[in-house]
Structures are given as C-alpha cells and as structure tokens.
C-alpha cells in the first residue's frame, strides 16, 4: 500500500461531516447537563424562598423567631421555630457528645495503633454502618435502644431524646472516624518519628504531635457530622415523638425540624394552608443551618490542605 492511498483514506474519513458535528455538539450538550446541578441549587433556593415568603405574609416573622411555642395542628396555632430548633439541638448534642469521642478514639486506633490486618477488617464494617438506611436505624432506636434505656431508667418516656440521639450518634461515627483517620494519615511520618525519637510514648506522640497537626481536618469531620445530625430525618421521626417543646428535658417526647416536615407531609397538608407553607419556612431554617455547617467544614478543610 503506498503512502498516497493512506492519505486518501484519511482525507476521506475527515470529510465525513458527522464527526466534526459530534465534536462540536458534545461539549455543548455536556455543559447543559453540568448546569443541571446549578439549576438544582437555584431550584432549592427559589422554592424555599418563595414559599417561605408566602408563609410570612400569613404569619409574622417576629412570631416565628421569638415565640417559644410551636403547635401547627391546634385550633390556635403557634409558630415559634425555637421549639423545633431546641428539639434538633438536643438530638444533635447527644449524638455529638457520644460520637465525637468514640469516632476520634476509633480514628486514633486505626491510624496510629492498629496493624494493617485489623484496619482491613474494621474499615468495611464502618462502611457497612455508614450504608445502613436511616429508617432501619429508626426501627433499631424504637424497638431496641428505647426499651433498653427504659429498663435502666423507667421514668423515661417511650419517645425521648436519648435513644434517637444515641442512634444518630452511631450513624455519624463512621463519618467522624474515617474522615479524621484520613486527616491523621496525612500527617507526615517524619513528625511521628521525631516525637518517638525524643522519647515520647505513642500516646504522647498522638496527643502532642499528630492531633495538633491534623486538627483542622478533624474539626472539618466533626462539623460535617453535626450537619448530618441536624439534617437526619427518619431516626427522629420514628423514635423522638411529635411534641415540639423548648425544654431541656431529655426524657420526654420532642420534635425536630425534620420530624415536623415528615409529620406534615405524611398527613394531608392541604395546599395553601398555613401548615403547608410552614413546611417551607422550617425547611428554609434547616437549609440555612446545614449550609452554614458545610461552609465552616469547607473552611476547615481548606486550611488543612494549606498546611502540607
């Protein structure tokens, strides 16, 4: 075959107009697809904002922010978001107090003490825990953890903050453990060897060298976990009850922001009622909370990336 023939073949292929058109069209099509994610964000913002504004034409924003009582279904409804926020905070606080020490302990063990074999064994378990649907955790909280707690303290209600709080904690342990472990593994070994060479024990090395060096990554993991706990829905709607209140009592039934949204949605909130629009006002509050947490987490992890 002579060179001439090959050139002719190439030219013939190039001449096919289809190819050139595809090359031009593909980036445009992909760009349009990419913009769907931006449209989703805009959609979320516009939806929440317009319906929240509708809500505030019916209910005064001052009542929403300053009243301490939330009773959407009574004949004289009260709209104080504080009661729902308190519910969310109680659950989140219990979850964090439980999950941060346990998650960090696990991360330290996996990153600094464990052999490769143990790590290979434990990590999949954490992945499985992270993959269990929250409705299953809810069932576990209601049918196993709550009776267990009531066996110890009989005065605790069937619906309470402790049981769902602990189970939300279990749910976020894998997140704290694996993200913190990543942060600790990124600390250079030379720093560890320096500490050990100066005669510190492994624990002293962890506390005085590894943890301080990985602190922003660890903080990012904790903040992300807080955000996840705030947005957690099924565990709290199954096991925490449905009575919004602003008290600090952990033994009685309560309602979180997410729990309220589910309660309204699973009943029949007729379109156009105050209760229907309150869905979006609560959703907006929830969105603002989690967005703030995500921004703080991103700030922490950017700081972390700058260090090494």
């Amino acid at each position: 075959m002579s060179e001439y023939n090959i050139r002719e073949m190439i030219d013939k292929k190039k001449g096919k107009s289809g190819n050139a058109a595809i090359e031009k069209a593909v980036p445009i099509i992909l760009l349009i697809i990419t913009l769907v994610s931006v449209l989703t964000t805009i959609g979320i913002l516009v939806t929440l904002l317009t319906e929240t504004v509708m809500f505030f034409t019916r209910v005064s924003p001052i009542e929403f922010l300053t009243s301490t009582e939330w009773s959407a279904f009574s004949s004289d409804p009260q709209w104080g978001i504080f009661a729902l926020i308190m519910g969310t905070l109680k659950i989140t606080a219990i979850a964090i107090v439980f999950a941060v020490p346990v998650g960090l302990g696990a991360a330290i063990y996996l990153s600094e003490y464990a052999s490769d074999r143990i790590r290979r064994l434990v990590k999949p378990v954490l992945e499985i825990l992270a993959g269990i649907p929250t409705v299953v955790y809810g069932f576990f909280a209601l049918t196993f953890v709550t009776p267990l707690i009531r066996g110890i303290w009989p005065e605790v209600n069937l619906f309470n903050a402790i049981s769902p709080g602990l189970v939300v904690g279990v749910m976020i342990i894998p997140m704290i453990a694996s993200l913190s472990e990543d942060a600790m593994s990124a600390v250079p070994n030379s720093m560890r060897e320096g500490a050990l060479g100066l005669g510190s024990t492994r624990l002293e090395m962890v506390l005085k060298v590894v943890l301080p060096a990985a602190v922003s990554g660890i903080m990012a993991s904790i903040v992300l976990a807080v955000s996840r706990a705030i947005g957690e829905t099924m565990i709290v709607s199954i096991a925490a009850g449905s009575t919004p209140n602003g008290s600090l009592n952990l033994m009685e039934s309560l309602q979180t922001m997410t729990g309220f949204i589910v309660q309204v949605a699973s009943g029949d909130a007729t379109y156009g009622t105050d209760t229907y629009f309150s869905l979006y006002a609560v959703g907006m509050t929830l969105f603002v909370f989690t967005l703030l947490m995500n921004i703080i987490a991103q700030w922490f992890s950017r700081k972390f990336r700058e260090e090494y």
Partner: protein
Amino acid sequence: MELINKEQVSKKLSGRLMVNKVMKFIFLLCTLVGLVVLATLLIDTILDGWRYLTVDFFTNFSSSRPDNAGIRGAIIGTLWLMATTAPIAIILSVGTALYLEEYAPKNKLVDFVKINISNLAGVPSVVFGLLGLTLFVRMAGLGNSVLAAALTMSLMILPVIVVASQEAIRSVPGSIREASIGMGATKWQTITRIILPASIPGIITGIILALSRAIGETAPLVIIGIPTILLFTPTGVLDTFSALPMQIFSWVKLPNPEFQSITAAAILVLLFILFLMNSVAIYIRNKYSKRF
C-alpha cells in the same frame, strides 16, 4: 551540667507506658463500638423477623392484618423506582463529570459549579423532598408518580456519582490519552474508546453505591407523598407506587407487636438487597480496576 535527670525519667517511665497501654485499650474499645452495634442490630432484626420471611410475605400486598401483610407492592415499586432513577442519574452525573474533567475551561464559573456540587452533597434529603414536591409533583404535574420520585432521587444522588466518576476519570493516565490523540483520534473518540472504558469500573462502583443510598432513602418519598398502602403495582413511570423503605416506615408506627416482626422481616429484605448491591460494587472494584 546534666540535661536529663535520668532518675526522674525512669521513675516516670513506667507510669507513662501504663497510661499509653490503658489508652490504647480504650481506643480499641471505641473501634469496637461500631462492630458491636452492627452485630446487635443484625441479630436483633434477624431474631425478630425471620419467622415472617415466607413465600406469602413476598407475594402478598400490604395489609392491615398482620397475617396477610406482604411486600409485593413495595418491592416492585422499589424496582420501578431504581430502574427509572438509574438512567436519569447516570446521564446527568457522568455527563457532568466528563465535562468537568475533559472539557471545562479553568474559570470562575467552573469553580462555582464544583463548589456547588460539594454543597449539594451536604443538603439534607428532606430539602430535596421539598424541591421534588414543589417542582415535580406540583409544578410539572407529575403527581406522586414513579417519575417524580426518580427525578428527585436522581438530583439527590448526583453529587455522589459525579465525585466518584471524576476520580475514576482522573485516574486514567495521561500517557494513554496522548497515545490516542497521537494516533489521530478526535477528543470524543478518545473519550468513548479510551477514557470511558478505562474508568468504567470506578464509575459503576460509584453508581451502585449511590443507588444503594437511594434505595434506602425514605424522607424524600414521604414528602413527595408516596402512598403506603397500595393494592396494585405500577404499569408505567407516571403511575403512583409504594417503596420498601416507605413500607417499613408505615409499619414501624403501628402499635401492634406483630407488625414489629413484620417490619423486621421487611428490613431484612432491604438489608439483603443492599448487601447484594455492595457485594457487586466491591467485586467490580476488585476485578476490573486496572493498574496503569
């Protein structure tokens, strides 16, 4: 001058080593918490639910009588939901990942898209539910159909697949890409014949893991208003449906203790499906991931 007081050091040493040992044990206990909870959850659910895992349980529709209650509608509904969610989510996410990795210029807009995707990953699923309720159920008039739920789920799992696909595409080495271009292939030919085949195991793993998140997700379905008791199965994407997590949620709330066992049985089915999906993902990851 003596810099180190040897006596002092050796006096303290045994105590320091002791604390190290004690703390190591405590850290180990922390690691075991996850393991213990997982084992407890599984054993508790199995003990509770295995008696109800009969053939009837799979062929009966939901019922208010415990003896007749089954998950036929829920399982078929979940299959419909996944079969509809998967193509939508795959086209959207893999397209986005391809654009970001292969075509996107370096500018502010693209940076914004990337930040936006990581923020979307942190939005609670209830908020996606509210978006679906307003946009798809109400404005688009899809009602509480399979399609409305699938669109909502697709947007929710989009960030997960995008990030996994981006990583998979990025791991294709530049050398084989350059070889393809050097042989005279166009950009799109390089993508379809070189880059996608090389990165497909990573992408599929991401897709399966994202779908296994969607399959257990309940909150958006509740908010969209998916019915819990339904005595027929959908025949098209515009029909309404029920889903397995939805069924579990509605049974959990019933006070009848027999329903607790039925709920446990349904959970076992859901966990088994998840286990299968994850096994397939791990198998694909190990078998087909090529080291370049």
